[in-house]
């Protein structure tokens, strides 16, 4: 390929690399992102456009619009094709589909360019006149946007939200309701000590006087229910915070089954 087809060469390389990575099951995220984004959103449209309109005078904004839009169209219509094929929507299938389209379109574009169908000359590039100073301005744009996103993310992460603790009571399995799973998960801001009691009416079945949980921690236990339980009254599972022992903090209700 001549120097004028460096773009097609690059597209071909990315498509082949992505195909290879998908076949070998490469999981390196940075590499997959670096190659996957152009293959999914740019290259199929770009190379198809190059094959359809080999001239260099379709440029700048028009080229960008058609490249991106055709890439979306190719991926969308390609999805309908994958839907009827046995491989489904796996990475290999996508890499195969979009990679093949990119390779075939690149080949066609190269042939059309080489056969002189692009008669018009190379136009003035869109980036004519960009200097170091203006480049610095664009660098500042990007920096400001990145900082803005960082500030927004930080604000969202630090937004005050109600602390909470989850309590659950579930049968150990669908078939065995005589064993229940009781669990506690804390999303409180500080470590908390809890007390848990399982009772039916006034009859205490089991209790755990102190359960110390760090933020984000989970505590779980399985309880075998006594056989002599009444089925006209529910089992209640009450969770207390030791700093507020008179208030039922969380409660589960479980009706025994015969």
């Amino acid at each position, binding site marked *: 390929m001549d120097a004028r087809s460096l773009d097609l060469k690059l597209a071909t390389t990315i498509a082949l690399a992505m195909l290879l990575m998908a076949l070998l099951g490469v999981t390196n995220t940075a590499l997959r992102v670096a190659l996957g984004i152009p293959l*999914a959103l740019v290259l199929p449209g770009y190379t198809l456009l190059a094959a359809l309109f080999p001239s260099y005078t379709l440029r700048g904004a028009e080229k960008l*619009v058609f490249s991106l839009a055709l890439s*979306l169209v190719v991926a969308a*219509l390609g999805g*309908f094709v994958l839907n009827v094929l046995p491989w489904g929507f796996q990475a290999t299938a996508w890499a195969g589909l979009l990679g093949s389209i990119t390779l075939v379109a690149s080949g066609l574009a190269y042939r059309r360019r080489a056969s002189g169908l692009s008669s018009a000359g190379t136009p003035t590039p869109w980036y004519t006149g960009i200097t170091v100073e203006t480049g610095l301005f664009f660098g500042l744009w990007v920096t400001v946007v990145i900082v803005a996103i960082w500030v927004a993310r930080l604000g969202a992460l630090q937004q005050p939200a109600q602390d909470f*603790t989850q309590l659950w009571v579930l049968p150990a399995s669908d078939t065995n309701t005589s064993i229940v799973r009781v669990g506690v998960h804390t999303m409180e801001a500080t470590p908390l000590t809890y007390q848990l009691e399982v009772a039916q009416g006034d009859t205490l079945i089991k209790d755990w006087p102190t359960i110390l949980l760090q933020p984000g921690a989970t505590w779980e236990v399985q309880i075998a229910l006594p056989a002599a339980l009444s089925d006209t009254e529910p089992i209640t599972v009450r969770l207390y915070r030791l700093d507020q022992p008179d208030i039922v903090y969380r409660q589960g209700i479980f009706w025994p089954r015969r």
Partner: protein
Amino acid sequence: MRSILPPWKARATDLDIGIASLAPQPAVEAADVTRQATYSWQWLGVVGLIAVSGLYVIAIANTGARFEAAWAEPLFWVGLLALITPITLRLAAPSVPRTERLGLVTLLGLGLYLVKVLHSPLGFTYFDEFLHWRTYQDIVTTNELFTKNLLLPVSAQYPPLEIVTVALTALTGLPVFAAGVLVIGVVRVIFVLALFLFFERLSSSTQVASIASVLYMANPNFVFFNAMFKYESMALALLAVVLYTLARREGTLHTASLLRLSLVAGLTLVTVVMTHHLTAFALTAFLGLWVICGWVIRRYTATGSGPLDMLVLAVVTNLFWMSFVATRVIEYLGPLLSSAATEFVNLVAGRPEAPRQLFVSATGVAPLWERAVGLGSVALILLGLPFGLWFLWRRYRSQSAVVAMGIAALGYPVSLLLRLSGKSWEIGFRASEFLFMAVGFVIALGVVHYGLPGRWQRGRVLLFAVAVAIIFVGGIINGWTRQWRLPGPYLPAQDTRSIEPQGIEAAEWARIYLGPDNVIAADRTNTVLIATYGSQYVRTTLSGSEDPGWVMYAQYFGTGQRELLQRERIQYFVIDRRLLAAPERAARYYRDVPLQVAFYKFDHTPQVNRIFDSGAIQVYDVGGLVDGR
């Protein structure tokens, strides 16, 4: 009638001649070209830097809003104006080069997209986004298209947005939120550039094109609604590509280029039809209008035609898709459209069935300044339209596409009328994203030819920038509920403001401890959380189910309620006690049953287990009520 040939028609012989080369080319030295270009890039750099600083201000405003700072909302508007105004001022100048205009328009389009991203930078928080996330999940988990999405069944029948996102996540390993943000970002670039090129093609003026693009972005849906991860966002961008390609084709005489452009337009049009129903219908309607205008114009002049082939393609693909794939679309849109049509007649007759009070939301009546700016923006648009239409008639009446745009712009006052009733406002609201293409273009014609030229030009430009600022701010006020514009503390039953960690964690608990695909009923917010984070089946009226609200908000589990549970095979209920602060949501079910009483029954009915409690949210197993499970 005078025949006016568009400038490119007189000279263009091949597509492969770019539009820039059609303009008169004065003999200039290469050094001059480079010097002018450098000057232009410098302007772009400076104006762009001020504009993106507005984004930083908005990020701070959002953070302040999360901590309930009183200054947050004013700062948000300051940031927004910092983003819009410098770009508007620069674009109003007549001698700005095309590349700079393209750069500024793209920057504004992307900047306004980032306003939405800065609002929700960690995950999807808008209601509609969850609906499409679920379709995405269904495709990934089943490896098939067209599975039933119970949140919005019609979404699964229009899957291209989700297909593209699946492709991106499969190839890159990115999480769905990051992939969604990226896809919609790309869509936004396509959209604003295609709009600019379309307007430029119609008007032969980069100034008109850039001002029309800015005015389009002032439509009430652009900043938030059309920036969401939803099918409409993608379809709108592709619609603009179809329109531009067809306008480009109009000036092409070379057969091979014409065929290639037709192929691009056709493929894109078919994708629009598969992506979003309303956009497909709007595109078909506009193509019809364009063709009719072409026929009428051709009777009087030698020029004028219309894309009849694309109209036929649009009609055929729409009918095919609705008949064989999107079979639920009539069921989904039919009631909405017929109700709006009936109410429109009532509104015209002055007897609306559901009169709607403007500027009123769940948090009360909007402040006076918001009402003034909201109404002012509408008044400015209505004021600008006649000037643009007059110029259009004088200068462009032989161009079918431009005449079609003029006629479409007349739909704007009608859409305003639709907003006056609760039964039709949604159609009026949705229509603005289509109508503003015509409205923006027509007003831009008037502004560029009557508004900006003449004495006191700086004053005129300043006045124009103020008007655009009012239209922008007013658009957001008119289109977006007050409490949704900025993030903030939890509010009950307020979509984006109701998405918070406790609800998300409850949904994730359900996925882990109950397993996926249980039938669960919940309120609106928890329904979308449990269906996406929780991977559960939900019951919604949209999916053809009976409304589980008739059980949730009932005083007790009577026979009717138990039968409904049996019919819908509902196993669990998610009860969010924070809804007690928004009792009006439940009042439409049982007016006389207080919400406290409705929730009380879950803890005091035999065989109903409270299996989960996180304080505000409880999950109840009601399976024992109907089948002894």
